[in-house]
Structure formats: structure tokens, C-alpha cells
């Protein structure tokens, strides 16, 4: 299987692998959703996962912080590490893992609480800070980090659900960075947003790369080209090609990749 994966040499040049996946298989009941996926996520880079619907890219993303654990019939095999530590180790605390590997979802899902409480949720449950001033600081920095501070600083007590779709999604990003994760997983974060809000989020992703490692699932190939350094193409549960983004889009090694990016199928 892995023989089909085209790992191009120029990739090896920079950065250090933050997360590695080796020979990952995922089953939903009897159905096999991922076939021996090997993939590295490099520190302070953005990795895009692209591919047609049902190809397994979201499944792979959800393996990286064990969100698949919440699905009863899902079974993950193989080896995934974060900083060389096996995240499927029995000893590992999944709660700790998710604090280090945060997630932003397809549809903005702010809690039905105030903007402030949405951001403070993570720091509070992890006991990062009990002090009001510290918490205020975290909320402000997180909102600034998500480019939302200027818009909401005067109405932190209002419900997060009252914001527009794009603002809600940035609120969710702020909520994720408030727990200071090392990796942020984004599952089609812009698919429910209009083009202006999408542009906002894309800029934000580029800025976030300074401090975080990001994996993003997207259906929009222009978006993948714009925001990511590496791109991985999934097809029918296989990782077909994984390369520098520019390389993958201009010079795909596999004909399935070429077919997909030129719009012949998918």
C-alpha cells in the first residue's frame, strides 16, 4: 500500500515532524475507512488534506486527537505519535491529548454561553487559571489571536451564538487557542462561511502558523493552495500523494491526483 504513496524527496528539507502516522487503518464496524496511511505533520506548517467526499480525510483528521473514540463502532489500528509519544497508548490521557491537539469543526459550534465564557471554557476546565485577571488576559489574547478582539471587545457578555457565522467560527478558533494547544485540527472550517469570512479565516490560518502546527481538511483546492505548505491527497481511504503544496498542484506524481485537481472526478 505504502508503495503507492509518492513521498517526494524535496519535502525532507525543513522542519521537524510534530506528529507522525504510520500504517494507520480505521474501521467503522466492518467497513474499512482508511488503508495503511503514513503521514507526517511538520511543526509550524499547515498541512492540507484534500480528496473527494468519503475518501477518509476527516477520519484521518479525527484520529489525530482521538475524536473517533466518541464513535462506538470505530476502531483505529497502527501508530500515531505526538512528539514521538504514542497517542493511542493505554497510559495516555485522552483529555490531555485533546488539550494539546485542539480542533475546529466544520460548522461553527459556539456553546450557548457568553463570548467570554466560550473562550474561558477550556482554561477553566484545565485549571490553567482561576484568577480573574489571568483569565481576562487569556480571553483577550485568544480573541486577538483569532482576529476577533476588535469586533467583540465591548460585548464579551453577549451570547456567542449571536455572532455572524464567520465571527462564530473565529470564536471557535479563539476557543481552541485559549488552551494553548500545539496542534490545531480544522475540519473544513470555511465550508459554512461566505467568501469574505473565508478570506478572514485563511489569513488567520497563515498567522497562526507562527505558533501552532495546523492540519486542515478542505474541499476547496484554491484554499489548500493558498494556506498550506504541504498537501495530502486522499482517495478511497488511501493516502495517494503527499507533497509540497506547490509541487502537488503543479506537478502531481499520481494520475489520480492529477485527475482530481484538474476536476475530472471527485
Amino acid at each position, binding site marked *: 500500500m505504502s508503495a503507492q504513496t509518492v513521498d517526494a524527496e524535496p519535502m525532507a528539507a525543513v522542519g521537524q515532524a510534530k506528529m507522525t502516522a504510520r500504517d494507520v487503518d480505521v474501521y467503522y464496524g466492518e467497513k474499512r475507512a482508511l488503508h495503511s496511511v503514513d503521514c507526517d505533520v511538520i511543526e509550524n506548517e499547515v498541512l492540507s488534506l484534500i480528496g473527494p467526499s468519503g475518501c477518509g480525510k476527516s477520519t484521518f483528521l479525527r484520529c489525530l486527537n482521538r475524536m473517533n473514540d466518541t464513535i462506538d463502532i470505530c476502531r483505529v489500528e497502527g501508530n500515531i505519535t505526538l512528539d514521538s509519544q504514542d497517542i493511542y497508548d493505554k497510559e495516555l490521557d485522552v483529555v490531555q491529548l485533546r488539550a494539546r491537539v485542539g480542533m475546529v469543526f466544520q460548522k461553527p459550534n459556539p456553546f450557548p454561553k457568553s463570548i467570554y465564557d466560550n473562550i474561558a471554557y477550556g482554561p477553566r476546565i484545565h485549571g490553567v487559571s482561576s484568577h480573574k485577571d489571568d483569565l481576562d488576559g487569556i480571553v483577550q489574547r485568544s480573541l486577538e489571536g483569532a482576529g476577533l478582539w476588535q469586533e467583540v471587545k465591548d460585548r464579551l457578555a453577549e451570547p456567542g451564538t449571536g455572532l455572524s457565522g464567520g465571527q462564530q467560527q473565529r470564536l471557535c478558533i479563539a476557543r481552541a487557542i485559549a*488552551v494553548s494547544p500545539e496542534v490545531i485540527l480544522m475540519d473544513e472550517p470555511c465550508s459554512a462561511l461566505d467568501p469574505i469570512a473565508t478570506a478572514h479565516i485563511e489569513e488567520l490560518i497563515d498567522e497562526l502558523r507562527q505558533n501552532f502546527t495546523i492540519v486542515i481538511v478542505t474541499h476547496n483546492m484554491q484554499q489548500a493552495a493558498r494556506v498550506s505548505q504541504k498537501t495530502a491527497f486522499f482517495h478511497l481511504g488511501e493516502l495517494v500523494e503527499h507533497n509540497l503544496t506547490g509541487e502537488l498542484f503543479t506537478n502531481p506524481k499520481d494520475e489520480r491526483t492529477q485527475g482530481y485537481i484538474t476536476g475530472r472526478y471527485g
Partner: protein
Amino acid sequence: MSAGILFALILLVAFSGYFIGRGRSLSVAGGAMADLHSLPSYYGLYIALWVGVPGIFLILVWLFLEPIIIEAMVLSSIPGYETMTEPDRQLALATVRNLAGGIGIREDTSADLLAAASRYTGLNSTSAWMMFAVGMALAAGTLAVTYRHIATEMRARNRVEAIIRFLLVLCSVIAILTTVGIVLSLLFESLRFFARVPPQEFLFGFQWSPQIALRADQAGASGAFGMIPLFAGTLLIGAIAMLVAVPIGLTAAIYLADYAPARVRAIVKPVMEILAGIPTVVYGFFAILTVAPVVRDFGVMLGIDASANSALAAGVVMGVMIVPFVSSLSDDVINAVPQAMRDGSYGLGATKSETIRLVILPAAIPGIVGAVLLAVSRAIGETMIVVMAAGLAANLTVNPFDAVTTVTVQIATLLVGDQEFDSPKTLSVFALGLVLFAVTLCLNVIALRVVRKYREKYE
């Protein structure tokens, strides 16, 4: 039983009307089905409905008006009718009815009444024949008229839909009118009660003792109608019931919604629903035979003078009865919180209990409050358990080991056996019912509002 025969005949005509209409539409179309506006069966239904519905309606109206009109006619034929009082008239009518049925004919029966009785019999049989004739004429008439309506361009489908809509509206109107009727009867009888007992005495009185002295020297019959002890008892038992039902029901709902594997859920949910299906009378004897002695022994152990019919026993059993109600409603509400909320919380590294405590429950709280309010109004209206287990003593107390009585218990006991409907003792039932109705109505309205407000948030 001419009404029954007429009913069957009208149904028969309607039934054959269906086939007649269907056949007629086909022959009108002359084999060219595409020319017909509607499918042939709609033409059949059109005739059948027009024959059946007015016919049955006629029978119902006739049966309702017949006795009223005939009795008025018979009464007015009795000599000296103008000078009779209302009870005398009722007595005369009852005699006439008996005589017509061949009961109580004696040598000394007055000729006037015998004449009235034969008139009564005659009118009844005339009416029966008239109903039969009018009914059949109506059926035949509507059949003929609707038959002539049938034409290729006639919109039978639309007309059938209109008739069906009318029938649906009629049925819902009946449901609403029944409710209105019950409320009005409660209201008017309560007014009769308040004419005898002042409302302020009823609403704010601390003494409930509905036995009225017939003689001055009678003991234990003070005739006081203060409802406060009854409502205090109702609230005490209701509060105990909620103390049992809400924690158990809610935690069960949380377990079922967020913890239980699908297999456990598939078993536990139906079992809970069986618990909801146990008749309250069974809970009642469970309360009095099993729980009450335990409570009394427990009270004795604590050194409290516990009554055999304690509020605690009734309240606890009522709470158990309400558990499935609370858990099933709360389970729905908790499940209605979108999965995205859970994902968002888990994605931030929250544990299951943190997610439930900090995200799911706050989001579900309006719905849970609604569920609890509905449960409260159920507890307040519950009768059988408290009749059996709570006792009759109208004590004003908050001691759960004491015997208390509730509004529903008093209503039930006051109406058991023969009653005179002009004494405040019996009439007080309507006032109690009215207040109970008002309380539960308010609770239900608040509960439904809360629930609806919550629904708007996510859907």
C-alpha cells in the same frame, strides 16, 4: 331501534353511492379517462360523503332534540301545567314515562296522566317514523343531486378534500368545545358554591371540615371550607415526589443519553416506559401496603411519632411513578442538544462529566425545567395514590411523617356515595376542581412556553 336501522341504511346508500358515482364518472367520460378532472374513485367518494355525512348528522341532531320537544309537548298537554312548579313537572314527566313503559299503572292513576302517557307513546312512534322518512329522503335526495353533478370538468378531488377538511375541523372543534364545556361547568358550579361560602373564606381559610351539622347538637361537624390545608398537603406531597423524581429521573436521563451503550439503552428505555404504564392504583396499594409501614417503622426508629398514612409514603411512591415521565422528557431534551456541542467540548479536552455539567445541562436547562413543571402538574393532579396512602386528615403541617390530605383526595371522598347537590359540602368539589385546574393550567402554560423557547434555539 329505528335509529340504528336508519344508520345502517344510510351507510348502505353511501356505500353504494360510491360505486354509482364511480360508474357514472366512467360513463360520463365515455372511456376517455384523461378527460375526467379527477380519478373515478373521487367521484364515488364525493357522492358517498354527501350521502353519509348529512344523514348521520341528521340522526344525531334528531336524537338530541327528540326527547326535548316531545316532553315539552306532552307536558303542555297535561291540564293544570301552567300552575305546576319545576319539581312537580319533572315528577309528572317521570310518571308519564313510566306509564308509557307500562310501569306503575294503578286503579287510581289519573286519567290526565294516562292520556299524556298514550300521547307520549304516540309522539315517540311518530317521531321515529318521521326520522326514518326524512333520513331516507335526505339520502335519496343528496344521492340524486350529487349524481347529476358528475361531469368531466367537475373537480371532485378538490371537493372531496374540502369535505375531509371540514370533518377534521369538526372533530377538533368537538375536542375544544368539550374542554370549554368542562371549564364552564366548573365555573358555574363554583359560583353556586361561592354564593354559600365567601371566596375569601375558601381561598384563605385555615380550617377544612366539610361536614355540615344537620342538628345543633351534632359533634364534629363545623362546616369550615378553608382550602389552605388541602393545598399545603398537596404541595407537601408534590414536593416530596419531586425530591424523589427529579434527581433520579434526571440522572437516569443523563445516563441514557450520554453514557449508556446502544444495547443498554435499547433495554432500559422500554423498561422505563413499562414503569410509566403501571396503573396508579397499583402504585397506590404498593404505597399503603409496602412503603407506609416501612416509613412508620423508620419514623419510630428516629423517635418521631409517625402516622400510618404519612405524607412521606405517598410522596415517595408518587415520585417513583413520575420518574419515567421526568427521565423520558429530559432524555429527549438532552438528546436535542446538538452533537456539535459535545464535539466542541471534547475537542477542547473536556471529560464527559465536564461536558455534561458545563455544556449539555446549561443548554438543556430550559427544556428540563419544562419537563419538571409538567411533572409537578402531574403530581398535583394525581389522585389514586394519595387517596389510598395519604389519608383524610386536613392537617396544616410540614412534617412528612404526619398524615395530610390533598385537594384530589377531598374531591374523591366528597363525591363517593349519595350526595345532595345543593349543599356547600358537595359544591365545594367544583371550587376545589377549579382552583386545581387553574394551578395545573398555569404550570402547563409556563412549561410549554419554556420548552418552546428552548426549541427555537436549535431548530
